[in-house]
Every structure is written in C-alpha cells, then in structure tokens.
C-alpha cells in the first residue's frame, strides 16, 4: 500500500498539517468552550464584586463558540481540497501506469471491465483519506496535546490519562481491527456466495423455470441469505460490545478527572473554580477520540482497492519495444504489408498462438480473415498493428519493421466495440487528429455516410454523444467510429469484426460504406461470416495460428468443397 498512500501523504505534508491544525483548533475551541463555561459559572457563583473579573471568560466563551464553527468549516474545506488534489495525482499516475500496457491488460486479466473497476477504486480511496487517515491523525494530535497540557499540571496523572485514553485511541481500535479483519474476509466470502446464487437465479431464470425448480432456487437463496444475516448479526454484536466498552471507559475517565481535580484542589495546586472546567472539557476530548475506532475498522474495506491498483502497478510491462528507426517518419500514401514466418506465443500459454505465418499484402488490397474463436485472429491483428512484436519472423511495412509508433500514421484500427467518448460527435471524430479542419471533419463524415444524419440534429457536430447514446443505433455508432479512423488517413485499416451483432441489412450497408470510402486503402478485415466475401481480394481461413484456406472468393468457390458449403449456408442456398 506504500506506493499509493505514503507518497501522497509526503507530497502534501504542508496541507495535511494545515488541515490537522484547523481540526485541532476546531476541537480545541469546542473543549475550551466547555472549559471556560464551567470556569465562568463556578467563578460567578462566588459572586465577585466586580463583573470585570469574569469579563475575559465571557468574551472568550463567545470567541470559542464562534471559533469552533469557523475552524471546523475551514478544516473541512482544506481536507476536501487536499483529497481532491491527491485524487488528481492518483488519476494521472494510474493513467500513466496503465497506458503503456492498455492493449495487453485485456488478455492478461480476463476481466472485461478491469479499467472501470480501477477507476472506482481510486474514487474509493478518497474516503480512505477523509474517513480513516485524517480522523486518525487528528485523534492522535488531540491526544498528544491534551496529555502534554495535563503534564504541565501533574505528570503522573498525565501518564495515567495517557494510558486510559490510549485504550480508547489505540488498544480497542487495534484489537477490533485484528478481530474484524478476519470477520471481514469471511463476510466477503458469504456475500460472494449469495451474490453467486442470485446471479445464477436471475441469469439462469428461464432454465430454472423450464426445469420446474423455481421453488428450490428461491428456497436456497433464502437459506443463504439467512446465513449471511446471521453472520452480519455476529459482527454487529461485536461492534456493540466494543462501543459499550468505550463508553464505559469514558465514564471511568470522567470520574478519574473529577477525583484528580479534587485532589489537586486539596493540594492547593489548582483553584476549585476549574473542577467543573476540567470535568466538562473531558467530555469533548473523549468525544473527539471515540470515532477513531470506527475509522480504523474501515481499513479492511479499502485493502481490496489498494491491492488491485498495486497489482497493476507491479506488473512489469512485458512488451519492451525496441526503438523504431526514426528516419522513416513521413506520411504514407500507400503501404505494403509483409508478414514473414511470424510466430507469437503468449507468456502464460504453452503453444504458439501464431505459428510460422507468412502473408504478403500489396497496397490497396482487401483481405477477409476468418476462423473459429481462439485461432489467433485478434492476435494477428495486434501483431499487424505493432501493438505486440513477433517472437520470431518479422512484419515489414513499406520496407520498415512494424512498430506501434506507426499506429495512426501507417495503420489505423476499427475494433469491435470502439469507445465513443462522452463528448460531442465532432470531438469524437476529431480525437484521431485534433488539428483537423471543419472541412476535413465533414468530408470524413460524408465518406462514412453519417453526415446527413448529423445535419438533421439541431446541434449538428456539437451534439453531445451521451444524449445520443440511446438514439444512435449500433450501425450509426460504427459509422462515427469509422469517420474517426478515416480522418487519420492511414493507408492500412485493420478491422476487428466491426459488424458483429448488426442485422444483415445494416451490415451490408456498412460494408458498402467501408469499401467505397477506402478504395485506395488496404483493408484487413477479421470477420465471422461470409457477407461481403465476394468483394474481397483475398479470403483467408485460419486455424491454430496458421492459414488453412486462402484465395479469392471465385477461386475458393470453384476449388474448395468446404468453402462452397460454408458459402452456400451463409447465402442460404444450401
């Protein structure tokens, strides 16, 4: 947890001190308000001749009452501002850690939405600062100051007090943290089981119903729910026990304070007028220390978030890329792509995903790549985009070794679910080339055949994407993404099943758009069925990382039985 908490505490030392200072002043004012009030009343009851004797207490009572509110307000603002600053840094850091390995994360962690989870984790850590770290530090500061002040009067009593308050501030929270940590793990397991059962019940509902076992699943769920609740009850009872103990100790501390004040008065060290003052103040000090136990108990709920972020951080970037040859950086009009005996194996796998793969793609060719799931189609695209480098063999674009640096210069990618950002349509298209002029923008929109739709919108290019989320169909979203790719104007476009899930009419229209807009360009298109195969220069079938069938549609249809059958099925002519 060191990398994600400590450096920020260090970096923002000044502001943390400031926030603690205001926190101490706020609590101190509250304590002093009661202290001075108690003194004021005791002193007044002696009926001094001159009211001026209690003038200072009268003024300071008001000052402290105002001070308490003001300091607390300032403290809240300072600490929130501080946390938001830390958040700012954590976000930037997380982004910088994740960015270089962005395309490898998905294959490394199976979890689809890992990045969303990480973003939530960072958000969650805000509370860790606000609700656990700061209150604990503040509690410690109050404790220290109070003990020092007492020590000025009587150091033996100060030590006694330090021990008693220490029980509230250290002993009980630490013991309860130790116990609840285990409970927390067990509770999480229970919750997960219930969650699992619920998911099974809900997502497999039709199957439960079809099997006539609905009452069974409902009963099982209720039983598991009962188990979870039973456990939660146990945790709660422990919490009551803890807080009860804390309150009991507070009562003892108050009495100890009373006895001590009386003893000191008897000695003549302090005046009887401050007995009330000391006793009343004790209440507000203990009030400030009590929340620490709750704050500390929350620690286990943050460990998951911290661990997850940490894990990403620790993962070395497996793909150390060689520096590209700088000289070749000029805008490409045309590009040939050559794969020469390329092999690639994922580090956690035994067999090669791509094996001895060779392919020559002349400039302007249109190629369709098909294959069953897991045969290496996506890996091949990653290799061709330079995101990963082959273990053996090489990929040559216009005579130079392929490198991710050529992304957006030589190669652009239209993936299965291109992300459309929560900004305007225009900005979404422009992301690929921020300096593009309005004419360029409309030209690519025109080519992607989305311009007429955008024109019908009242705000045109400035229409926010989010509002449109509902209104834009899958095909229209792909067109916007395609316009973005066109704006980059690269000679090679890689497509990773951009039409999956669309109905045949939409698919056909998109295909027509793709092909007519990218007449001059090379298109390498990973697809799952044969719609549009006829328009392609080459159709390639893959299995186990190698090519099993290759050729243009007519050749294959004439010579290959398997292809014939597939095509006939696809076209419904079987």
């Amino acid at each position, binding site marked *: 947890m060191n990398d994600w908490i400590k450096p920020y505490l260090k970096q923002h030392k000044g502001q943390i001190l400031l926030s603690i200072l205001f926190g101490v002043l706020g609590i101190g004012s509250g304590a002093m308000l009661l202290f001075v009030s108690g003194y004021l009343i005791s002193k007044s009851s002696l009926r001094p001749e001159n009211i001026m004797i209690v003038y200072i*207490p009268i003024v300071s009572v*008001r000052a402290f009452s105002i001070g308490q509110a*003001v300091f607390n307000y300032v403290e809240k603002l300072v600490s929130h501002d501080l946390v938001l600053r830390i958040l700012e840094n954590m976000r930037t850091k997380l982004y910088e850690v994740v960015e270089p390995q962005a395309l490898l994360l998905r294959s490394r962690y199976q979890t689809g939405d890992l990045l969303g989870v990480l973003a939530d984790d960072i958000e969650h850590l805000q509370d860790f600062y606000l609700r656990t770290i700061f209150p604990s530090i503040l509690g410690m500061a109050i404790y220290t100051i109070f003990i020092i002040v007492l020590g000025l009067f009587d150091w033996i009593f100060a030590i006694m007090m330090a021990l008693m308050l220490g029980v509230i501030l250290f002993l009980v929270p630490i013991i309860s943290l130790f116990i609840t940590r285990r409970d927390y793990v067990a509770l999480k397991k229970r919750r997960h089981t219930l969650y699992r059962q619920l998911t099974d019940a809900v997502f497999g509902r039709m199957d439960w119903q079809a099997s006539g076992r609905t009452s069974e699943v409902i009963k099982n769920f209720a039983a598991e729910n009962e188990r979870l609740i039973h456990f939660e009850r146990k945790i709660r009872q422990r919490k009551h026990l803890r807080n009860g103990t804390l309150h009991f100790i507070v009562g003892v501390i108050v009495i100890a304070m009373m006895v001590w004040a009386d003893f000191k008065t008897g000695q003549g060290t302090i005046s009887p007028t401050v007995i009330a003052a000391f006793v009343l103040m004790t209440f507000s000090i203990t009030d400030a220390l009590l929340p620490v136990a709750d704050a500390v108990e929350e620690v286990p709920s943050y460990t998951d978030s911290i661990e997850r972020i940490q894990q990403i951080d620790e993962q070395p970037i497996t793909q150390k890329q060689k520096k590209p040859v700088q000289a070749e950086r000029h805008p490409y009009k045309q590009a040939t792509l050559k794969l020469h005996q390329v092999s690639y194996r994922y580090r956690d796998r035994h067999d090669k995903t791509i094996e001895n793969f060779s392919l020559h793609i002349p400039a302007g060719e249109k190629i369709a790549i098909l294959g069953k*799931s897991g045969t290496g189609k996506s890996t091949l695209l990653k290799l061709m985009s330079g*995101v990963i480098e082959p273990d053996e063999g090489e990929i040559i674009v216009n005579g130079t070794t392929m490198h991710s640096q050529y992304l957006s210069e030589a190669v652009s990618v239209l993936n299965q679910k291109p992300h459309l950002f929560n900004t305007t349509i225009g900005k979404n298209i422009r992301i690929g080339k921020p300096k593009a002029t309005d004419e360029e923008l409309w030209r690519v929109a025109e080519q992607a055949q989305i311009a007429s739709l955008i024109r019908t919108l009242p705000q045109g290019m400035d229409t926010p994407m989010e509002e449109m989320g509902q209104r834009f169909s899958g095909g229209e979203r792909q067109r916007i993404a395609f316009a973005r790719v066109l704006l980059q104007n690269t000679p090679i476009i890689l497509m990773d099943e951009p039409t999956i899930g669309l109905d*045949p*009419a939409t698919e056909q229209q998109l295909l027509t758009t793709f092909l007519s807009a990218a007449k001059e360009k090379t298109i390498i298109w990973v697809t799952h069925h044969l719609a549009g195969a006829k328009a392609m220069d080459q159709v390639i079938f893959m299995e186990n990382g190698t090519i099993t069938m290759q050729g243009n549609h007519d050749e294959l249809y004439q010579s290959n039985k398997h292809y014939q059958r597939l095509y006939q099925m696809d*076209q419904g002519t079987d």
Partner: protein
Amino acid sequence: MKRKKGLPSYPGSRLLHVVLSILIVLESIAIIAQATFLARAITLLFERTPISNVFTEITFFFISFVIRYSLQHLQTYIAENYAEKTTSRLRNSLVKAYFLSRNRFVQSAGTGRLVTLAMEGIDDLKKYLEIISIRMLRTGIVPLAIVIYVYTHDSISAIIMIVTVPIVIIFMILLGYAAEKMADKQYDRYQVLSNHFIDSLKGLETLKYLGRSAAHAKSIRRVSKQYRQATMRTLRVAFLSSFALQFFTSLSIAFVAVSLGLRLIDGTISLLPALTILILVPEYFSPIQEVGSDYHATLDGQVAAKEIDAMIKQEAKRQKPTSHEVTWTPSSILQLKGIDVESEKATLLKDISFTWKGSGMIGIVGESGAGKSTLIHVLTGLIDPKGGSIHIDGKNRKTLKSEQWFQNIAYIPQHPYIFPASLADNIRFYVPDASDEEVKRVIKEIDLDVFVQQLPNGIHEKIGEGGRTLSGGQEQRVAMARVLLSKKPIIILDEPTAHLDIETEYEVKQVMMRVFQQKLVLFATHRLHWMKSMDHLLVLDNGRIVEQGTHQELLSKKGTYDEMHKKGGYGNE
C-alpha cells in the same frame, strides 16, 4: 430521483416506534439524571466537601451514565434487528417477484439491475432503516424532555435554547437551498468532469489505437483539476449549512453560559441548577446536529426503498397462475389471437394472430426493433400480453406464464446461461436425476465428445464462472444437450448463431437440425439460411405480422420479406 420520505412503514414498524419512543423517553430521563448527579458532585467538590461524602453522587452519576448508554445500545440493537428482519424479507420477496411476477416492469428492469437492487439496494435500505427511526424520534423526544426540565429550573435558559432551533432551521433551509441551486446549475458539467476519468480508461484501447493515448495524460490532469475546482466551489456553499448549525448551537451554549454567569453574580440562581443546565445544553442540541449527518446514506436508502417497493407491489397484484394442465403433443394446437404488448413509450406488438398445429419450425424474422424479441418473450411466458388471448388445444389461457407451460419449453438465447457447476450437471439441469450414461449419450449426439475427451475430469469438469470457459459454439451445444436429455417438446430460440463464426455456425446447425426433429421450434433470427429451413415464417414490422408463409412464398410476394432480403445483400445470384 424518486425517493420515499418520512418515517418508514413496513410490517412491525408501529411496534418498533412505540418501543423506541419508550426507550428514548427513559434515555432522556437518564441523560437528565446523569447531568444532575454530575452537577451535584462537582458543586459539592467545589464547596470543598470531602470526596468521601460525594461518593453517592459519583456512583449515581456513573449508574445513570451506564444506563443511558445501555439504553442507547438497546435502541440501536432493536432497530438493527428490525432492519435486518425487514430487509431479509424484502430481499427474498424481490427474488420471488422476479420469478413469479407477470409484470413488464419487473421484467424490463433488466437482470443486472435486479441483482444490484437485491444486493446493494437492500444494503442501502438496511443502513437507512437502522438509523432513521431512532434519529427522528430522538430529535422529537430528547430535546423536548431536556428543555422542559431546564424550564422548571430556569426559564431564561430554556427560552434561549428554544429560540435557537427555528433560527438554525431557517438558516439551514436557506443555505441548503442555495447549495442545491448551485449544484443543479453546474450538474451537467459536473457529471462530465467527474466521469471523464472513467470514460478515458474505458476508451483507453480506442485511444491507443488512435495513437492518442500518451497525449491524453495531459487532459486527465487538466480535467481532474477542473473537477476539483468545480467541486470546491460547490462544497464551499454546501458546508455552510453544517457551519450554520454548529455556529448557532455553540453560540447558544455560550449565551446560556454567559446569562447563567451573570445571574449567578446577581445571586438570582445558584451554582447547582446553573451547572446542571450547562451540562444539559450540549445534550439538547446533539440529536439536532445528528439529523443532518449521513445525508447520503439517507438519500440512497430512500431511493432504494422506493424502487424495491415498486417491484414488490407489482408482485402483490399478480393473479394466481393458471393451473390448467398443459401437455404439448404432436397434435396440439397453439393459437395466438390479437396479442398486444405495450411499454410506457410505445406499442411493441399489435394484433398478433397466428395458429400452428403440432411440431414444425416457425421462423420469426424482421429488422432490429420490429418486435421479434418481444414476441419470443410472450411465447416463453416472460411477459403477459396486454390484450388478446393465447389458446392451447382450444383452451383460453391469457398468459403462458405457468409452471405447466415452462415444463414444456426450452428457451435458448444467444448466450445460454452456463451454471458454475460440472458439465454433466449443466447438461442434466432440467432433469437432475439423469444418469451419467444418459449424459454421455447426449454428449455424443451433439458432437461434444471430442471436446469432453480433452477435459481432465471428463464430464465432471467444472465449467462456467470459476471453471473452464466455453466458446460460443460449445455453449449452444450444451443448451442442445439439455433439450435432448429433457425431451422437451417445444424449443424457443432467440438468434442463437448470429455471433458464431461461419465454420462453428455450420457445425452447430447440423446438430440443431437433428435436435429439432419432431419438435415445435420457434426461432427468431436474421440469418437467411435458417429461414430456408423453416416450415413457416412470421415477418414482423413495427410490431405487426406483415407477411407469413414459407421462404419461397414470401419471396414471390415481392413484399417486405423480399426487400429485407435484398438489403441484406442476398439473392443477387
């Protein structure tokens, strides 16, 4: 955002409130006793009474102190138990509602939403129920009891305390209003800023492919900064209301203290009552100060309560499922008459009428949004039609949502649900008592035996979450195996092969065609090759059946079907 305000009312809440009120009254007495004994002890010590003579006061102080906190814990404990019972019941009802309700609202809420509601929503409600009753009752009872007691000793202090409350309330309302207005004003912008980071991370892959990811780091920092500034602007106002609360209450304490001090000097009041009052004033304000805290817990709880109530209320209204025996035989007749389905916004199905006898393959086709899925949902009994009737063998049964109908059908969506269990248990899901031999037999029939041979544990290999992941084609085969083993006479499918690659689709189709023999198959799809295999096609457009017949008949009609067909790029040869 809709939420449920006021004291929550669930079964048993009245009793809870009575019990809590009694306990809170007792607690108030303990608070006053604690203050009085403490004040007496201090006063006696102040008067230099030997501490051994003050022992009684100190003991009584401690006893009332302990009683006070015991009562407080008891209240919390009771409220927590109540919350636990209530939410546990609600959680079970929610799941039941999801299975049994025939209302579109529950069905359309979406499975993900339901899971969240039953887990997090219930937790939110629980937290809310644990605090809300105690908090509201305490605010009503404790200050009142204290101020009455103070009044009997010193009316001036009581008046100061009473007057403070409306001032505090007025300021809090004003400031709360200002903060809300300010927050509303920049809500949209605020949303964009706060979601920017998540949006960026989700789109990171896209950014990377566009070659913009490195440059984007700057924009993360910039937007985070803007977010902080915008948040702080709002917080400065939002915190003002808690500032006002604290400001006026502590000022009130100061006023009471000063006024007591001055009257002590005058001699119009003595030390004991003065000290008692001084100790009680913070106790008077403390329940009021608590009201405003945990604002989010309250809000979340109220929102969840509203939503849960809505779902469960729907369930309460549901009719008893029809309990006619339904057994589909090869000579049974299914008849839909004028089926209508509506959502809040639009008509989804209008006047669907269709009759079919015995087994056969019925295709349901149409463009996206034509109503295919809705019709499938009606046929599976997931949703009730608003109008029209469904007859099976001549018997009118308004709805298909009945255990008997479910026994007859198997529903196969694009991704059949794979339970986290063994392959065998997944396959015999509909007939749990089927033997391993029977399971092996169907595995062979659906050509999954080669795959099973590779598995270390054979048919007992764990699949689904936490186990081996199946490919799309394998998922479909498992679904087919379930059907084969259970011998269900009706299969309803929703686009089961569109996402498969063509080779897998080809293989799966061969298996499916074998399984479909002698069954009634209702099949929604875009894929043309399926349509040719169908005995009858229903062409949907805008929620209506616009054409029906066989593939060839429809093509020769040169109508909607033919046009759809051409748009899909087919039939050019």
